């Protein structure tokens, strides 16, 4: 195996030399004022580097990273689709970048129009009565949505209700959100087809009927499956006075296929950084707008953007901030991740209604194709037509020591980013694979071939897998040691 060219680099602190600086600043052009001596710091030991050294440092770091621009990134549940370059340019237009959030509304009509129309687009796509773009990410949208559900229950005199039902296949943010909202999680098992177990759900609804705030459901779920009893589930929850929360992480499968509002969801968060092509940024910033039914519109976090008919002129409407009367309050400062909204808006405008449906169709086509190519070797425990992703097991009866993690690390040697590992929790040694619609058949075939080769290697040369990756900037890293030693910053 060839040794990689790129290997670990010194820290920025280790290339620092006294007196260097990568930025020039203007001379002071006013008379200096007296400094508050007793409040001044002695020193600020930040790095001192020249501009060229700074750029080389970060360029080298970037070369140790793998992104969608580098290659196939089938990280399940994260929708790592291609991030169009035009999005980046539009988000950097000076007319957007230099806007202060507290400027006079008259001076920001273009920005408010963009927010307003993106709200409208998301209403149409999800089948909702109202949308707020304020939440910063999916989990933040969850908190927003569940707090709204709680507020709605309180508003109708049901403040004693304190239970949220969460399937065992749910993402960790769902139960964590429930706790943060001051509510209790009751977990619902899945049935043998990967649906919510209806019997168990009925029992839980009966047991907690007078305590039910609602249910958080991801659909398609984290197995990549559309729940076959969705209509029964939503009816049941509503019957018991609860609301349906939709975790929209998997909206990529539903664009133009079905609107969550039509499916019986009362609230749903979108992930602009998944479904609507905004970049994941190495871990954010994302954006997690929430859409709601009419009953919940008054509870949305404030402010949202509305049109003010009174201030419209002949040729243009006037956009203004609106504060819903029963709002749960603000969930962050200002209005949300505007820069991300610009990218999502650009994408939706370029796709149009047919394009969005094509996205969902091809995302689902790609996932089913990839599944068809490997399912005879990688056991798919809930094997039926999947939506945009599927989950298989990364273990083989005749290679008992090989684990999903070994397979993932070996994929790196073949030039691919690994799938999501060990989630959802209900599949042993889970490999959760989401190809997205932006990948070609050639890429999918190359990936399937690699997976099949690795399955061979697992039998013939398992050591190759245990020791993988061989072909990355670093070899396998010792995570246990990191947690034990807790070196969380550079020490001189």
């Amino acid at each position, binding site marked *: 195996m060839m040794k990689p060219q790129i290997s670990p680099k010194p820290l920025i602190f280790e290339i620092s030399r006294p007196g260097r600086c990568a*930025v020039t600043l203007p001379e002071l052009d006013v008379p200096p004022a007296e400094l508050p001596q007793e409040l001044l710091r002695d020193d600020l030991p930040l790095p001192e580097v020249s501009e060229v050294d700074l750029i080389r440092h970060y360029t080298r770091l970037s070369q140790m990273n793998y992104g969608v621009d580098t290659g196939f990134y089938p*990280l399940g549940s994260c929708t790592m689709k291609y991030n169009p370059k035009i999005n980046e340019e539009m988000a950097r237009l000076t007319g*957007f970048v230099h806007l*202060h959030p507290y400027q006079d509304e008259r001076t920001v009509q273009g920005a408010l129009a963009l927010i307003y129309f993106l709200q409208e687009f998301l209403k149409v796509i999800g089948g909702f009565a109202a949308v707020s773009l304020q939440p910063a990410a999916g989990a*933040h949208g969850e908190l927003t949505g569940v707090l709204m559900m709680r507020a709605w229950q309180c508003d109708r005199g049901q403040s004693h209700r304190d239970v949220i039902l969460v399937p065992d296949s749910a993402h960790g943010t769902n139960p964590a959100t429930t706790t*943060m909202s001051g509510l209790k999680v009751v977990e619902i098992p899945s049935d043998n087809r990967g649906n919510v177990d209806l019997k168990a759900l009925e029992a839980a609804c009966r047991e907690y009927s007078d305590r039910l705030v609602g249910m958080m459901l991801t659909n398609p779920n984290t197995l990549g499956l559309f729940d076959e009893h969705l209509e029964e589930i939503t009816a049941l929850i509503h019957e018991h006075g609860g609301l349906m929360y939709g975790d929209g992480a998997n909206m990529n499968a539903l664009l133009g296929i079905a609107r969550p509002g039509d499916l019986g969801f009362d609230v749903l968060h979108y992930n602009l950084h998944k479904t609507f092509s905004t970049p994941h940024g190495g871990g954010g910033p994302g954006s997690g707008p929430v859409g709601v039914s009419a009953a919940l519109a008054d509870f949305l976090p404030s402010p949202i953007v509305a049109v003010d008919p009174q201030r419209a002129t002949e040729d243009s409407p006037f956009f203004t901030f609106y504060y819903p009367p029963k709002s749960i309050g603000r969930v962050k400062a200002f209005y949300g991740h505007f820069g991300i909204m610009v990218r999502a808006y650009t994408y939706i405008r*370029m796709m149009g209604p047919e394009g969005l449906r094509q996205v969902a169709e091809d995302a689902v086509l790609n996932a089913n194709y990839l599944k068809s190519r490997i399912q005879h070797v990688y056991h798919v425990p809930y094997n039926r037509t999947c939506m945009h992703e599927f989950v298989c097991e990364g273990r083989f009866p005749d290679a008992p020591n090989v684990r999903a993690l070994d397979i993932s690390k070996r994929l790196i040697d073949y030039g691919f980013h690994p799938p999501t590992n060990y989630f959802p929790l209900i599949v042993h040694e889970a490999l959760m694979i989401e190809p997205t619609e932006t990948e070609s058949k050639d890429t999918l075939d190359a990936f399937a071939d690699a997976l099949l080769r690795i399955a061979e290697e697992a039998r013939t040369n398992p050591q190759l897998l245990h020791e993988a990756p061989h072909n990355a900037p670093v070899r396998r890293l010792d995570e246990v040691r990191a947690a034990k030693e807790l070196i969380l910053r550079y020490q001189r």
Partner: protein
Amino acid sequence: MSFIPHSDEDRKAMLEAIGVRSVKELFQDVPERVRFPDLDLPPALSEMEVRWELENLASANFTTAEGPCFLGAGAYRHYVPAVVDAVLRRGEFYTAYTPYQPEVSQGTLQAIFEYQTMICELTGMEVSNASHYDGATATAEAVITAINVHRLKRRKILLSPWVHPEYRAVVRTYTQGMGLNILGDTGDGSPPVTDLVDEETACLIVQYPDFLGRIEDLSPYAEAAHRAGALLVVVADPIALGMLKPPGAFGADIVVGEGQSLGAGLNFGGPYLGFFATRMEHVRRMAGRLVGQTVDAEGKRGFVLTLSTREQHIRREKATSNICTNQGLVALAAAVYMAALGRCGMRRVAELCYHKAHYAADRIDRLDEYTVLREKPFFKEFVVRCPKPVKEINDYLLDEWGIIGGYDLGRDYPHLQNHMLVCVTEMNPREEIDMLVEALQEAV
């Protein structure tokens, strides 16, 4: 079709391999009643057309780049060096995700490790996490940390009225289901919030410099909090920390703040950056991602996400927070910014802001109709008592002079009607300040 590579032949071959005749067959599980709705959206545009549309929207705005701007109040106009965007534009950084697979994510991980270190230096704290959504949500998470440090036994939270009004609102939103008692910020600051600290108090939250721009010795706050066993949470401006004593030196237990000034630009309010730093003793109760140093199988230094047993994907309903995606790329921008300016540059930016703000305050104070409130030292923002409603003055400044005026404090503080919060940074040359003074005089 944009961004989708398939030809019809590809699709046909793939459907065959799957064993279905049409793609519609893949959607049998979707209830027929609602399947394939018409989406009432505008038709698709080409790249060229979408550019025109977006350029039109952008040019309908009047930006801070077009006229002198004296607006701050939590979002600041600071210079963003060209190197910042040069780094952010690297596809290997911005098209990656959370570094779950460390062997192919060393770039992100090392950059965040360096970021954590720089935030520790800036704030004078021992440990920093990888980021929160913004300063407001970082403040709310600090409250939750403080509650957990006290094992849910203390339910009182004290907020100084001079913490950013929107941060205080977010703290209330986040904690509305937790049964907390949040006090201290309703009046005009008297009696002082320190008088309310007692054995029930989980934390006391103050801002540094405060929302009105004032800088204070934080020791009395630390003493009051610690005497009762409560934590002191400080919301700090990272640019001010370029010259001011770090909150850690006063004994702060948690330091949070808005990192937007560190290379993120204004962007109409986001995406920004919440930073969060504390002492090692609280590390297991803190929220958010954390990068730690380790070695690989050959003994070489490397970095991984660590202490994930605090986090939602492991601990689920018992996690310290639900946060997952955070502000990775904005934290990278902050790291590049701090490294680019470095030890001397950070100090210099802070001093430029300080001197220019004081020059502006001196000149405005000399106008007969205006008074600058200056009982306490201030940093880059100060309060001006105006002879008429701030909105009227700002309308005049904008319409007649093209100046974006200061923040109307009457929006949040009833006793501060007709008071304007003026912000001056290194981005305001002397001529702009002189122009503001002249315009204010004319505004009367």
